[in-house]
């Protein structure tokens, strides 16, 4: 059964803070930005959260392919910043995109890969013909404690994918997941900010899981890096995806269109999905795209994607990733702190 992406949509808030401005406040110097290869990050408006971002991305996905929202049979939203601990984000998204009430919904949480886990769940329901269309969303207004290294990259954004069997803009040829119990990054119940294990988030976490999932998928499909025109890897900073691409044998040219972290930061559950959207924004029919997400805790989902002719028909019907990146308004640290609710009064 051929299943894949019927449409996609993204949303990135228009506010940005430069990493040099964060470094100025904490006395860290400009080398932080250069070391992370991240220069700016997106910041939500005062009235934006993971729900509003998910809705905007989902509306863009529906608009791009002019899809009847009543066809949606499942809405799965991946995030680590759902505004309600109990009350699903998917219920609000469903009502806001005018779906019928005849759909199943659940919120997913798997650090930065909850969005790709939602894609997999939709693929299962769609491929088994239990539903017509599934809406999978990765959305986050991620948190980083003031002064913590996470604060330099924790950004906001969302990506929504309509998964179906007909009128595909891109076929998902297969996926492979690699999951272990690795405590590299976590947030306990009721705590406002996550904790992490510093350098432990690298080799045993990000690199081991991304490489294992990517190699597992290529082995399963009998493909190699040269078979792909583009590749997207989760982007916690600007260094890791470049290094993991080198380790796997992908070139800088293959990952370049999807490298969005230098300008918007790490959008967590949306990171690899926005990277994929930026690649779909420029891909041609017949191109193949390799995508691997990573979520701390830890796991990776790798996907092999083949772009179809229909991409040309739908691409221009909604704003591109570059449209959002190009529309930016800069904040100083004080305004950023207000936007992020870091000031408790």
């Amino acid at each position, binding site marked *: 059964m051929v299943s894949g992406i019927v449409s996609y949509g993204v949303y990135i808030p228009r506010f940005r803070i430069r990493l040099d401005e964060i470094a100025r406040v904490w006395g860290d110097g400009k080398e932080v930005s250069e070391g992370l290869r991240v220069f700016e990050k997106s910041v939500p*408006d005062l009235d934006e959260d993971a729900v*509003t971002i998910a*809705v*905007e991305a989902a509306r863009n996905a529906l608009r791009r392919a002019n899809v009847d929202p009543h066809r949606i049979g499942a809405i799965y939203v991946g995030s680590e910043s759902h505004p309600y601990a109990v009350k699903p984000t998917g219920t*609000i998204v469903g009502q806001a995109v*005018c779906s019928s009430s005849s759909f199943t919904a659940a919120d997913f949480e798997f650090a930065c890969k909850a969005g790709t886990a939602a894609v997999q769940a939709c693929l299962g329901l769609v491929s088994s013909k239990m539903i017509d269309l599934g809406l999978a969303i990765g959305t986050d207004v991620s948190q980083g404690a003031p002064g913590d290294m996470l604060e330099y990259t924790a950004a906001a954004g969302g990506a929504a994918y309509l998964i179906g069997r007909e009128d595909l803009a891109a076929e998902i040829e297969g996926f492979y997941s690699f999951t272990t119990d690795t405590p590299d990054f976590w947030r306990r119940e009721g705590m406002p900010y996550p904790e992490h294990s510093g350098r432990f988030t690298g080799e045993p976490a990000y690199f081991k899981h991304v490489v294992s999932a990517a190699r597992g998928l290529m082995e399963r499909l009998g493909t190699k890096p040269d078979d792909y025109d583009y590749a997207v890897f989760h982007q916690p900073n600007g260094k890791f995806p470049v290094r993991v691409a080198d380790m796997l044998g992908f070139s800088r040219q293959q990952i370049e269109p999807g490298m969005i972290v230098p300008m918007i930061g790490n959008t967590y559950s949306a990171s690899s999905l926005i990277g994929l959207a930026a690649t779909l924004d420029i891909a041609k029919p017949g191109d193949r795209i390799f995508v691997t997400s990573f979520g701390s805790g830890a796991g990776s989902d790798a996907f092999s994607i083949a772009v179809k002719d229909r991409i040309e028909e739908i691409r221009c019907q909604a704003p591109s990733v570059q449209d959002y990146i190009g529309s930016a308004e800069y904040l100083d640290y004080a305004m950023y702190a207000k936007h992020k609710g870091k000031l408790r009064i």
Partner: protein
Amino acid sequence: MTTHAPRFWRSIPQRYNLQGTHCTRCNEYFFPPRNVCPNCRRGAHLEEYTFKGTGSVVTYTTIHNATEDFERQTPYNLAIIQLDEGPRVTGQIVSALEGVKIGMRVRPVFRILGKEGERGIIYYGTKFAPLLEPSCSHDKISSQKK
């Protein structure tokens, strides 16, 4: 704690998606929705209608001293917007503090309208922002491929 959840819940269709009514007899659109068409009265044919949400700014003001619920958001722009189908609505304009102009084209955006403190429900709904049209066109993509 006191919650206004039922009252908010009843207005979700209007707040999220600008759902109003349309009289097919006189072709007038109403927002918020009306049970009776003031033009056609008993002869009206009213149907539910979801507004596109695009429209133009009729007039606006910048709020510097807000009520308690909005005091952390100041300054912000509050506008009367004429929807393309005709009705006028009052709403916040986001993402353009300095750039709002009378006649400016706007689109609907989904935002937080308010919260019942730290523990209560979150009110979501529609605000307005300047139009954002996709920059890409079929011609541009075709020229990239050459």
